[in-house]
């Protein structure tokens, strides 16, 4: 296990962020945890190679995104929060419901931009490079996503729906 040195430290440092990333992408805490476990298992196997890479974070982020795409394909789901159910609505006490409902209204591309810009703190250029799109597209998708999130979150907080 000597050649896996550094794996535990990486996981301790990045696991919360990876979970949040998975959550924003798939919209469900249980599925998010499954995704993270799946990714970390693969990462452990590939660690001797991945650890030598220039950007371990970038590689792992891509693993999470791909794992979510695979999950959607496997289950025949749409990329969204369709799995959201009423029971979750009833047990939500910490604002998670608001976010899940709001994220549901975002397109997959907008969710990826939010993940990179606001969770990982990447710049517009870095986000554009990571997603293979133009910086202008990143800016417009970010603005659209934030506007949409704001619009979706406000009514929930004001209304008595909860």
């Amino acid at each position, binding site marked *: 296990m000597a050649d896996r040195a550094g794996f535990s430290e990486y996981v301790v440092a990045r696991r919360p962020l990876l979970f949040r990333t998975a959550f924003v992408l798939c919209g469900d805490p249980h599925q998010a945890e499954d995704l993270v476990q799946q990714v970390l298992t693969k990462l*452990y196997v590939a*660690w001797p190679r991945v650890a030598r890479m220039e950007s371990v974070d970038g590689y792992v982020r891509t693993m999470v995104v791909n794992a979510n795409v695979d999950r959607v394909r496997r289950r025949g789901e749409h990329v969204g929060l369709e799995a959201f159910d009423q029971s979750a609505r009833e047990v939500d006490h910490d604002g*998670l419901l608001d976010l899940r409902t709001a994220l549901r209204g975002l397109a997959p591309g907008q969710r990826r931009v939010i993940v990179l810009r606001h969770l990982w703190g990447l710049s517009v250029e870095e986000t554009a490079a990571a997603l293979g799109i133009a910086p202008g597209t990143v800016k417009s998708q970010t603005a659209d996503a934030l506007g949409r*999130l*704001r619009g979706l979150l406000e009514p929930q907080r004001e209304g008595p729906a909860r």
Partner: protein
Amino acid sequence: MNEIDDLLRGIETPDVDVADDVARGEQALRRRHRWQISGAVASVAAVAAIAAALQGGLGTSGSTAPGYAEQPSVAATASTPAAVKAARQRAHHRLLTVKQRMHQIRRQMEGLTSQKTVQRYHDVLAEHLDPTGTQLRLAQNEQGGGGSFGTKLDWRNGGMLEIVVGRGFAAAASFYDLSSAGMQDTTYGGHPARVSTSGSDLVVSARHDDGTVVTLIASTEFGNNGTSTNGLGLTQDQLLEAAADPRLQLPPYLR
């Protein structure tokens, strides 16, 4: 949009022990090693089976098979990376052996095919030039190269009737000095043909519908043998008729 940032950062994360992640990784790693060993064993077994089938089918000697059957069981009990590497190397070696064997088999098949082709050339030419079967004999000779194929046949015990089949009039130039024969264009049966105009040998070439060109060279001397007979008793027309026979074709592996 600090509110969004706060919301994202506020997503609660489950309390998971890193040791659990490591344990799952270790399990996957062991599973992968098992797959690698199984794959290596399966490769060795498959290659051994192919090699055994090939050798059994042809009944040839010089086998490198001894020990094939024992190899998989040795690899199956191994579980270290070194054992996996060794199993892979053995599989690679077996694969090379099979490739070499396949090459040998192909050569053998070509040999059998070319012998058949020579026999067919003899039979067709005999049909045209030696209906009684007293003049033309096989002479254990094959010529080939550059996509052409031919043979020298014995004519009247010391004379030579050489046939070269190729894809153009120049095909026979690899085996005979056509320039010394002063080849001249003509036609036979409506197809392009060439006949010799100089030298002591009779040389004709006839092109078939499919582009195959058959060249026949009748000589009073059989190559280096030096045995000669006078009077071949053949004419250019006879040779052209024989050369134009569509049954005179390249062996299948050259078509």
